[in-house]
């Protein structure tokens, strides 16, 4: 299932320094890369920018050659109804199956749907996809994000 539903996310290490976020986004713009989803985690001194883009391979090479420290991560996405309780349903299934969520972020996909992106420990990914699928949750294929 990982092959079918695994989504490549790029995590970029950023110092909390003026203009650094601008430089990442500028590099992506210049390479005509579209950001489909993003989240920024931050500590006192540094942040981690997490991106799902339309062309992960190209984004990776562009950012690497611009000198950014980055890591490619396998995440997955689910589509839920944009209404109260949807997120709860997904988290409940993961929790019942002892799957820890490293982090998650979401966006409203339009047409009363929302898309949730999850990162779980890599040795739990296959299991997570399996239990969610069985639980009737709609898994989102990478093609939804990629060109």
């Amino acid at each position, binding site marked *: 299932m990982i092959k079918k539903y695994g989504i490549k996310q790029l*995590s970029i290490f950023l110092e909390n320094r003026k203009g650094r976020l601008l430089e990442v986004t500028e590099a992506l713009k210049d390479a005509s890369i579209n950001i489909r989803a993003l989240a920024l985690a931050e500590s006192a001194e540094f942040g981690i920018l997490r991106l799902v883009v339309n062309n992960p391979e190209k984004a990776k090479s562009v950012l690497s050659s611009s000198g*950014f420290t980055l*890591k490619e*991560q396998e995440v997955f996405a689910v589509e839920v109804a944009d209404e109260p309780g949807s997120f709860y349903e997904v988290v409940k299934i993961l929790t019942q199956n002892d799957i820890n969520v490293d*982090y998650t972020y979401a966006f409203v996909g339009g047409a009363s749907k929302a898309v949730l992106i999850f990162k779980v420990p890599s040795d739990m990914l296959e299991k997570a996809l399996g239990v969610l699928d069985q639980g009737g949750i709609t898994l989102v294929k990478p093609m939804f994000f990629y060109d």
Partner: protein
Amino acid sequence: MWNPIESAPREELERLQAKRLRDTVERVYHLVPFYRKKFDEIGMKPAHVKSVEDLKNLPFTTKQDLRDHYPFGLFTVPMDQVVRIHSSSGTTGKPTVVGYTAHDMGVWKEVMARTMSMMNVGPGDVVHNAYGYGLFTGGLGFHYGAEEVGAAVVPSSGGFTKRQLLLMKDFGATVLCSTPSFALHLAEVAQDEGYDLKKDFRIRAGFFGAEPASEGLRNALRDAWGLVYIEAYGLSEIIGPGVASGCPYGNLHVFEDHFIPEVIDTETGEVLPEGEEGELVFTTVTKQALPIIRYRTKDITVLHRQPCKCGRTITIMESVKGRADDMLIVNGVNVFPSQVEHVLTKIEGITPNYVIVLDKKGVLDKLEVWVEVDDRTFADGIGALETLKSKLQQEMLNDLYINVRVKLVEPKTLERSMGKAKRIIDKREAEGLKS
């Protein structure tokens, strides 16, 4: 003045130095294979050394030589004559070890008594000694000096700032011995605690050393405490504190009847004339356990031989201007960049690409190590990165004995802003001192 030799005519002093130098050269040549080998290599015999002038023909000794003969390889006495051993931190491996016979302890007390006498410290004085007691020579050196002149010593050592202030006030301390930064820290905490420094305390003299102090810091201490600032200079390889001492006129006098100073060109090793700046070199001429010939201190200074207003005729050295190598002194503790590098390479995955940034936090030195995070080290999680950071900080504390703040930075940062080779940024002098 504790000893009339400090103001003796120079000819008398040089005769004494020459005799002691001849004895020391005989001693090391016959008792230490390391020296015999070095002398033989250049065809030197002890008989070739007749006066202080001949010193320039003798080989140098370095800190590395001390390490190579760890622990007791350069001692000239059997261990049953050694009554004290001190040690200072090493770079990556072995520390340097120094030993004293009972006679050497006598020399140390003597020169520390001379230091104390710069301000006529004696019976009736209460000496608050906040230098660290332990392997570091600072604490015990001042302790013995104060006892030798008959003062009452309060061996408070470092730390516990508020309690120290209470004792200084209640015991009526008249003399403070500490690093200059700790003395300013004491003053600032005292102000915060609501003390009136000049009314509540009776400190008339401060003996400050073990780290460089700018004129701004010296003035801040004079103003805060209303004390006379006496600079203390020393290094454990020579004896500890007591190699040279400031006088009330602000000149730093070398006790050269025990430790003969020279200034050399750090590149060529040539002796430089009086008044020229170079690396300070010492030869001990009265020590027994660990006599040392032409020890390269790496300290950059200038020597002057004119008499001082205080009456002393012994050589004056200027305050140390810097280091010939890249050793850093952080709150009195020696730190080498190679130690930092060593810690980084111990942590799996970290490329030893780093920059050391020294700054002042309040009055205390603050050391930051900026470590590059590359694609291999980068873990996608704030928690994982914070763990890496605290692990590095813990390792630095274990190896360097100081608190280091680790900052994780992007690879490009270091190269862009300061060039690859520059590993050390010292902001302590540049930003001036808070007073």
